[in-house]
């Protein structure tokens, strides 16, 4: 068992087989630096619970292929990324920090799927981004690739 501590001082015990999906922790264990609790100053407990849920489900990925549990795993992944933007970004940052390749791919793919075909206005609203470009800068970007801003497939809805 490996002990992880979130930035709000909550401790979690995770099986080593699960936690070594994190390259960062795997390296720490190999280097003998994981003897006591591993503090994770960038991750809050809410996000860490999500990450551990993913790690536990994805123990022995190879086994799933053998026992035909791939569909089950796929369904879990679909359900797993069914979360709001804020939560998704928290998990992405945690996956990036812990260096969990598969989780990173899953969450970034989900974010990309939500953004695909969206209009500029819709992206700004969905992600609550304030436009900080000047009018000249905007015009330059449009002139660079005018074809990217027209077409019936551009989706202006925010969900």
């Amino acid at each position, binding site marked *: 068992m490996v002990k992880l501590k979130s930035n709000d001082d909550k401790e979690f015990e995770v099986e080593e087989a699960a936690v070594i999906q994190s390259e960062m922790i795997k390296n720490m264990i190999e280097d003998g630096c994981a003897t006591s609790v591993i503090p994770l100053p960038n991750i809050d407990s809410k996000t860490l619970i999500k990450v551990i849920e993913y790690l536990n489900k994805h123990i022995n990925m190879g086994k799933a292929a053998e026992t035909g549990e791939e569909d089950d795993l796929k369904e879990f992944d679909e359900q797993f990324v069914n979360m709001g*933007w*804020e939560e998704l*970004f928290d998990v*992405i*940052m945690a996956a*990036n920090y812990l260096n969990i390749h598969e989780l*990173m791919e899953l969450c*970034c*793919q989900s*974010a*990309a*799927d939500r*953004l*695909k*075909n*969206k*209009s*500029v206005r819709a*992206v*700004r609203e969905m*992600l*609550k*981004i*304030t*436009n*900080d*470009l000047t009018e000249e*800068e*905007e015009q330059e*970007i*449009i002139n*660079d*690739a005018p*074809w*990217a*801003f027209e077409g019936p497939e*551009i989706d202006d809805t925010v969900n």
Partner: protein
Amino acid sequence: MGNERSKKVKKSNCNCLSLLPGDCAEKILGFTSPVDVCRFSLVSKSLQSAAVSDSVWEKFLPSDLQSIIATSLSPIPHFPLKKDLYVYLCHYPILIDAGLKSFSLEKWTGKKCYFLGARDLNLPWSDVAQYWNWISRPDSRFPEVAKLNQVWVLDIQGTIRAGVLSPQTSYSAYLVYKFEDVYGFYHRPLVVSVGVSGFQLDQRITFMLPVERRPQQYYHIEDGNWESVYLPSYPQQLLHWQRRHMQGNDASLMQSFVQHPKLRDDGWLEVELGEFFLLEMKMIA
């Protein structure tokens, strides 16, 4: 009031993609598409800088691009940014395969596009000057194009190795041409088709001559006198042709449909020959 306002500002920023470490935003953009990334540049400064990063555009360039470029005859400028290389390859097709083909990228998706030069096509009798001539034209990307003088049967075939195409992609094949003299192209339709590994997938009927360039009437010699004859319309010709060539309820021919040529931006005409979809080329050794 002041307190409430600062709270609001904080909330409106907490959910922002720009708060992600730069490489996370780039990773997300890499899972969208070239057209999305170009559009998202307009969202904010931070997205604009993520949208030009090499890690994003690397994913949109074909994985075997280096080997394609290595065989190219065309000089390709050195671009510090992968995005600029992408844009260049969308707009300036490069000659590959000893000048027989050209290669470019489709700008919306980054999928690979190939253009077979006339020298790469199978043109029966193309070495007989009476039938075909090899000429060069400033409006062609290839050093030589084939000029048709006269043939009794027009049969043009081209093949490309499926492995060089982008996998999981729906492709269309086109014939690109120009008319100097339209004689012979207004009497009857042509059959065009595409197939994979010799298996025909799509068959269409086309009139290569655009309807607006079709003469109203033509002349032919009847008992030693030139006579003017009104040309039947394309629908009439099609009906006539179908009666002659289709056996009753030939299902495969019933499915074929009429394809009209289009004028391209470069002044050439193109007619779509058909579509095909390629899965991953795992099965092919």
